[in-house]
């Protein structure tokens, strides 16, 4: 069921106990750190177990739980309770995707050092996650800028898809079927992170339209 919402100007005079804007920003920031850690790990050759992404994913999980608990308890929220929940859940899927990719790379034991497409894909994901964080930061104070950043986050998915298609084309030019199958799995995994970023971007645009 819908709930009463506090207009932003009113919360400046009467600050709420739970600031959901700040909570979402901290979750988005943690997500960005996780995706950056994935990029750093891939860039460095993906040697050994990727602990940093796992750590950030656990920390992000704690924020998600905190948001859910506070949503259950709080009577007045800055915008629809369901929208805050959806944003947090969808954002969590982004860092979950980063962790899954790490696990797959570890399990498949492929040499990523020579694959520039993988590095390029990871870099695009970092851009997307950075735009998501910027959107959350602008959400409370500047909706037009928030809309711009959400649009940029969504565009990163288009760029990722483009790189993905080039990467697959190049991959299938080779003869090593085992390597093709393994690498394709990783490409797919990275593409799915971009798609999750796009889902958060769409949800953010939906919230921005409602707040305007």
């Amino acid at each position, binding site marked *: 069921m819908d709930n*009463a*919402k506090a207009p932003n100007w009113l919360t400046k005079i009467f600050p*709420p106990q739970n600031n959901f804007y700040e909570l979402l920003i901290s979750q988005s920031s943690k997500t960005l750190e996780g995706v950056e850690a994935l990029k750093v790990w891939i860039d460095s050759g993906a040697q050994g177990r990727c602990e940093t992404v796992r750590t950030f994913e656990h920390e992000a999980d704690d924020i998600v739980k905190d948001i859910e608990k506070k949503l*259950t308890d709080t*009577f007045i929220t800055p915008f629809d309770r369901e929208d805050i929940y959806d944003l947090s859940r969808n954002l969590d899927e982004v860092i979950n995707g980063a962790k899954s990719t790490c696990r797959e790379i570890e399990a498949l034991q492929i040499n990523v050092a020579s694959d520039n497409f993988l590095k390029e894909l990871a870099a695009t994901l970092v851009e997307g996650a950075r735009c998501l964080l910027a959107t959350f930061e602008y959400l409370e104070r500047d909706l037009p800028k928030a809309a711009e950043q959400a649009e940029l986050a969504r565009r990163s998915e288009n760029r990722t898809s483009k790189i993905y298609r080039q990467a697959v084309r190049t991959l299938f030019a080779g003869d090593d079927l085992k390597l093709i199958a393994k690498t394709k799995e990783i490409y797919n995994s990275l593409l799915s992170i971009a798609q999750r970023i796009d889902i958060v971007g769409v949800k953010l645009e939906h919230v921005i339209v409602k707040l305007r």
Partner: protein
Amino acid sequence: MDPHALLISVILISCVFTYTNGFQDGSSVAATAIATKAIPPYATIFIVALFEFMGAYFGGSAVAQAIRSITSYPDRASILPVLASGLTAAIFWNYFTRAVKIPSSSTHALIGGILGAVITESHGAQYITWGTIDHVIQATGLWKVIFSLFLSPLIGFGAGYLLLLIMIALLIRANRKIEKVINVLQLFVTSALAFGHGANDTQKAMGLIVLALNAVDPSQSTEIPNWVRILSGSAMAFGVISFAPGIVKRIGQGIFKVTSLHALTAQAASAIVVLYGSASGGPISASQVIASSVIGVGAAQRGKGVHWLVARDMLAAWFFTIPGAAIMAFLIHAVFFHWLELLIKG
């Protein structure tokens, strides 16, 4: 024709008018409480009907005096066809506008009907008591009725707007458990609103019944007899029980998505305006006050989320209802009740 037969007709038509009023406005009173599921629908209808009746019985007679004061038509039997024409015009206007989907208001229709019938009967406005403007707040005669009718929705809007901001400021750190308290409070506020509405709206018809009684028997007191209160209160309560789900949907969810806090706030803002109107003798259109309070709450929450067409409908009702009902009263009087009057004189 025996004037008593016409007196009984006026009383019956008054009851029909009050019934239709209860049917329309009672659903508005119950709308937000039902829409937010704060109180079960049947319990809400029962509570509203009960408090509407209590409002009719215990709500004083200030509004009745105000309605009576719009005309100085002498206390004689010839006023009976005038009242019958005015009341019938108001009823027909309400049904006509509903059929052709034109926005309307029962109270405006009643005022228009009575004005039209008095002017038709006396061939001029000499029996219309304009009264004084007197800084608006202490206006008398027709001016008091006009100010009350036209200002009350604006005050309802402002009260709804401000009250929601105050409630949000007060509850900004509240736990969700407060929702249960809000639902219980809705029960009290809905009862208060129903009481105020019962007092205000039944008195409009009761004022006219007393005029009719005085016309037949000038020795009769100008106070409202208890049997008139019971009769009008019962007609109102039956109207409420008849219930209009369409109005509940329109007020409860049609203006914007109302939550329990919005509902409580809109009900409280409406109750303040309606109870003040009843105590000060200002006739008001409860359905318009409730709708405007909901719009005020919606505007405070998020102006772009409000279906402003409802406000447009209200404005249309302001400008069309009084002249429309007056013309209808003219036609009804000329075609039907004028001949009854000739029968009385004959």
